[in-house]
């Protein structure tokens, strides 16, 4: 739940920032931290940008840990109203938790309903990318909420250790906006903390992304599409259906003077657990199954590297 800055040579701690103090939702901060030099409020800053599981995107000054921006990168996020940015406040830098969604306040054996994001996070380990030309981040996101019921549990070494049942579902069920997509691919301005554009995806975007100097952002979908969209508008320019859902990272490279784009397909991970493990019921796979139940209508298991050569 914490970002640590350490001296590379000595390992000594430079600064720490805790994202979700006293986590009650399984929002551990395993996501990547991206370094980018950006101008914020007229000042050139060496920043570190992090899209957390908890649904907030953080821009920090990486030289000293100063929190510059912390905003929701999925409008559905509801467990906290905001991150307190008031430096004179006692809760400075902390998320302001909404009681209704506090699984601890509601307590053991109470099903806390409609918490956004789900334990999957608004984004999980699939990495975002930064494009220095547009100055924007291109972020694969989940648009999923959950019911979360904690129960008593005691630790036994070497044994499964799960103290809650979860059910996950499209965020539209909480927002009441009649949408049922569980993902968005977004362009994010980390200087202001705002979504610049957002492309709906039926399923969570669970692939890593890459952008090119040619003005394209690439990502993969759980149904198995590799997509190329315009960096500035998000407009879809190309898609190709690979044999299986994509949870791998899109890469681009040059070989013998030619540029290639490549991606591994092969559905799995938390979002694809239902398909990968043959699960069928809502609460299974820590609640991921219900949410992605229809995935099996769109793709199959697999493991293929698909490589595209760009025209000369």
């Amino acid at each position, binding site marked *: 739940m914490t970002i640590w800055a350490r001296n590379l040579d000595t390992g000594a701690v430079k600064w720490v920032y805790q994202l979700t103090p006293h986590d009650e939702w399984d929002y551990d901060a395993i996501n990547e931290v991206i370094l980018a030099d950006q101008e914020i409020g007229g000042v050139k800053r060496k920043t570190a940008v992090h899209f957390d599981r908890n649904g907030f995107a953080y821009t920090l000054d990486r030289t000293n840990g100063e929190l510059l921006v912390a905003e929701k990168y999925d409008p559905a996020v509801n467990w906290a109203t905001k991150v307190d940015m008031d430096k004179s406040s006692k809760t400075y830098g902390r998320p302001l938790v909404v009681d209704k969604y506090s699984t601890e306040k509601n307590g053991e*054996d109470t099903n806390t309903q409609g918490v956004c994001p789900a334990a999957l996070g608004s984004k999980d380990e699939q990495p975002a990318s930064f494009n220095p030309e547009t100055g924007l981040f291109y972020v694969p996101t989940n648009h999923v909420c959950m019911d979360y*019921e904690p*129960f*008593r*549990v*005691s630790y*036994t070494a070497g*044994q*499964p*250790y*799960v*103290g809650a*049942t979860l*059910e996950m579902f499209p965020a539209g069920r909480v927002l009441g906006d009649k949408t049922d997509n569980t993902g968005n691919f977004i362009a994010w301005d980390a200087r202001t903390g705002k979504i610049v554009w957002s492309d709906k995806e039926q399923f969570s975007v669970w692939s890593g992304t890459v952008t090119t100097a040619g003005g394209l952002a690439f990502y993969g979908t759980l149904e198995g599409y590799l997509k190329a969209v315009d960096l500035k508008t998000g407009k879809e320019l190309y898609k190709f259906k690979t044999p299986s859902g994509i949870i791998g990272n899109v890469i681009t490279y040059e070989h013998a003077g030619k540029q290639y784009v490549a991606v591994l397909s092969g559905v799995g991970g938390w979002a694809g657990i239902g398909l990968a493990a043959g*699960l*069928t*019921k*809502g*609460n*299974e796979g820590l609640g991921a*199954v219900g949410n992605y139940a229809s995935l099996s209508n769109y793709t199959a298991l697999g493991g293929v590297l698909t490589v595209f050569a760009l025209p000369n």
Partner: protein
Amino acid sequence: MRLSLAGALALGVIMSVGTAANAEAPGDPKAVKSVDGKYFDAKGDPTYNVKPDGTVDFYTFSGYRRYHSECHVCHGPNAEGSTYAPALKDSVKRFDYAEFSGIVIGGRENKQAGNDSVMPAFADNKNAMCYLDDIYVYLRARSTEAVGRGRPEKKEDKPAAFSDAETKCMSAK
């Protein structure tokens, strides 16, 4: 206390290993009496109770939760089995409460042609031991489909006796 009862039952296991064929059948799962929100069959073994409107007793609900946190990784969701371990919703039709408890407490190992099939011993895992009856009644409810797949939608309130036993068992050293 349930933990020590469980310890006594472990003895039974050693003798019943490999004798599943002539194991004792469990008897009718119909609940004939209730003590503090916990239901028992005619033999006095714990069982489930589902009301006509689908409300399950709290122990069955608790068993659903514990099964899916302790057992389903091997035995598959909804007690329906996996390529790795048997469907416990069927197993509990073949042998009784004592044998069930014995296997869970003591574990079981089946070595065939280098293909090890291992049911771990749960004797020192409180998350299973303190809820052994709960898991058992959930499995019985699955065995007759009295409880369907997934989370039971309606449940009785948590009985005070449940909370007391839970606190005692989970905090025991």
